[in-house]
Structure formats: structure tokens, C-alpha cells
């Protein structure tokens, strides 16, 4: 089981801020996960505007999912 978090525009597109899911076999990288999520949430197809953090650390699409407990997807940040 992994917790997926969604923030800002991604949260609005998905329709919720958090879900816990069982990942199917065969997902190796964050890119694989994003592809799989695109079926349900089309916003995941727009990689240019999607960023990701794995267990509260900024990550990349080629980062391996491994034993991640919390994966967050969000648009490029706009703080400060």
C-alpha cells in the first residue's frame, strides 16, 4: 500500500487530496506510476507541468518507486 498525495491544480483535477492504493505489479519508476494514473486522471499525461516528491523529498520521473510509502504529485511550485 502506498499513499498518494495531490496538491493544488493536480488535487483539483483528481478530485481529492489523498488516496491509499495497492500498486499493480510491473510499476518500477515514477514514470510508470504516472502512466498508470493517466488512465484515471488525464492531468498525469502533462509531464511538463507535473512534479513529484517521494517520501517528502523532491524526485524525478526516473526515480524508482522502491519501498516508497508516500508519493506526492503537484504542479511546479509557486511559493515565496
Amino acid at each position, binding site marked *: 500500500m502506498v499513499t498518494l*498525495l495531490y*496538491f*493544488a*491544480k493536480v*488535487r483539483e483535477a483528481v478530485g481529492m487530496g489523498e488516496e491509499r492504493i495497492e500498486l499493480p505489479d510491473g510499476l518500477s519508476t515514477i514514470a510508470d506510476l504516472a502512466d498508470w494514473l493517466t488512465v484515471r486522471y488525464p492531468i498525469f499525461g502533462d509531464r511538463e507541468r507535473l512534479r513529484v*516528491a517521494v517520501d*517528502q*523529498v*523532491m524526485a524525478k520521473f526516473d526515480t524508482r518507486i522502491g519501498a516508497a510509502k*508516500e508519493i*506526492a504529485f*503537484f*504542479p*511546479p*511550485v*509557486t*511559493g*515565496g
Partner: protein
Amino acid sequence: MITIRISREPFEVDAALAALSREGIGAVASFVGIVRGNGGLVALTLEHYPSMTEAALHDLAKEAVARWSLGGVTIYHRVGRLVPGNPIVFVACASAHRRAALEACTFVIDRLKTGAPFWKQESFTDGRDVWVEAHESDDAAAARWG
């Protein structure tokens, strides 16, 4: 000394500067970002990633301390609903000498803009709510620090 605070409340700069003014500190450079009221903006709402934000800012402050041998870094960031004129973010870097403090302060705010998990939504007089898009100029500013 690293101090990070994420809060819905306003921050007090005099108190933050006093806390940084310890032995050996000759210079404190600071930056305050403020909500601008351009184009009919009535409010700015800041969302963040609570379990990540503080650690991300702490890591950023630690990098600045190491790179410029700073005596202290303070970062305050507000979240929630803010109106034009409200301060959003405060960054202060303390050092023996001014050049290090000023450069480090620029570094921290440049990196915060592109690396800390905050998102702004703007609300306008005509009722529109619009997520702020990231600026390419911010990516360029952050990139020049390597």
C-alpha cells in the same frame, strides 16, 4: 542557528533579527515577499505540503549555511488566505560580513521559489480563482546557483 516557521499568522521581523544578532554577527540580510494587488487581485491563497515543507526549508537553510559559513538562517512562510500588502515570506541570513549575508539571502529566496512545496491561487474581483503558473525566470534565477 536555523529557524523555520510555517504559519497562517503574520511574522515579526524585529524579533527575528534580534534572535540572529549574536556574537560574531556583523550583517543580517533579509528579504520580505509581499502580496501585490495588481489586476484586480483581492486575495492570494497559499497551499503547501505540510509533512514536507519544514524539512525542505531546513535543508535549503543548511545548504546556505554551509556554502557561505553563515551564523544563522531564518525562514518564515505564511500559508492560507492573504490580501494585498500582506507579507508572505521572510528570509534572513546572518554572517560576519555583508557580502556573504546578501548573496546567501538571494540564494535562499531563489531556491525557495522553485524548490519548496508551496502553491499560490489568486482570487480576483470578478470572482475568478486562478492557480499561479511557475515563472521561467524563477527557474533561471535558481539555476544560476548550480
